[in-house]
């Protein structure tokens, strides 16, 4: 092979490599642009879907007439110290507090010392296969319409289903309602028609905005009570009332 041919072959190869490099750069550039566009669009879709869901909830919202605190809670008693209780009907810790501290709460209400505001929130929907938390919270609002919130609330905790199962179905919720005196059609219709489903979502959302990240969460006069034992609750109420 002559020297000239050799050089020409080499030159051709250099050009070929250059073209390949350029091509690679173009492909990298456009795939980068594509990937970033896909991720931005995905993010915007997420934002849009969430905004749509929020709008949907707002559109369907019915606030129970007896609800207090911006329509997010049910009050019991009329004492000077406000006790806010955030509970999820499937939360075993809430049931425990109801059992241990419940009588103390009743005592404080009867002594005219506190106004208890029950906030039935639904943060544990993933612990049942049927969104029991949301359904139970919604049903409790319907019970409030019938003037039996507390009775229904107590009955739900007494018959609390275990976490991880199907919860109690709507028929069972209606049956429990009947057992505490909610015998009219309005209660059954509200449960079956999911009348307060959006309301349960709103109550949960409001609680989250207030920094409630777990249940049970108890505030005495706006201050969180770390462990709501009977003694701690009584002490906090005394301190707030003084």
């Amino acid at each position, binding site marked *: 092979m002559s020297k000239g041919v050799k050089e020409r072959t080499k030159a051709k190869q250099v050009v070929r490599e250059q073209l390949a490099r350029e*091509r*690679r750069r173009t*492909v*990298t550039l456009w*795939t*980068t642009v*594509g*990937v970033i566009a*896909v*991720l931005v*669009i*995905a*993010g915007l*879709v*997420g*934002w849009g*879907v*969430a*905004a749509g*869901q929020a709008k949907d909830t707002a559109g369907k919202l019915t606030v129970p007439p007896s609800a207090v605190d911006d329509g997010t809670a049910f009050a019991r008693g009329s004492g000077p110290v406000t006790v806010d209780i955030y509970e999820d009907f499937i*939360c*075993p*810790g809430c049931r*425990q507090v109801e059992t241990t501290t419940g009588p103390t709460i009743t005592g404080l209400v009867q002594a005219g010392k506190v106004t208890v505001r029950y906030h039935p929130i639904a*943060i544990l*929907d*993933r612990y049942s296969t049927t969104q029991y938390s949301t359904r139970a919270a919604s049903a409790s609002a319907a019970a409030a319409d019938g003037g039996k919130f507390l009775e229904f609330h107590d009955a739900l905790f007494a018959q609390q289903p275990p*976490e991880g199962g199907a919860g109690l179905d709507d028929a069972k919720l209606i049956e429990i309602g009947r057992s505490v005196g909610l015998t009219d059609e309005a209660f059954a219709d509200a449960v079956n028609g999911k009348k307060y489903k959006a309301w349960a*979502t709103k109550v*949960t*959302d409001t609680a*989250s*905005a207030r*920094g409630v*990240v*777990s*249940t049970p969460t108890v505030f005495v006069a706006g201050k969180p009570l770390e462990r709501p034992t009977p003694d701690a609750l009584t002490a906090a109420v005394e301190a707030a009332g003084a």
Partner: protein
Amino acid sequence: MRIPTPWISTVARLGLAAVWLVAGGLKVGDLAASGRAVNAYQLFDYETAKVVGAVQPFLEIALGLLLLAGLAVRLCAGISAALLLIFIAGIVSAWARGLRIDCGCFSTGGELGVGVDPAYGWDIARDAGFLLLAGVLLWRPRTRFSIDGILLEDER
């Protein structure tokens, strides 16, 4: 026997794709809960946490699909690594502040019930494992069965 690097990278790519698809898929069904899980870290105000919680599952799924397709693998691996580092930082900060939360990594986590202990150590170890997958891809992004391979006319 030596396994050629493209095959190791291919396994890493598909593994990381599965991680994102599962992580995003488990959260996408309940965006409100996803927002609450972010809120539980107490790093953002609630409005911001809601947006982060809504955007995140979709980003994760998109990233998973891109990795599955093998498009711009090195870039996707870099973004994955950045996200994982942010998640690890979030868990470390929750741990350091003594918060008792479920990391929400593969669920719409958030709060933990009474008597349930957070598994921060495991969560971090797991995320570090995923980070390793991303690292492999950052180092050797060439993989089999990828769009990158087709576009670059990989003869190998």
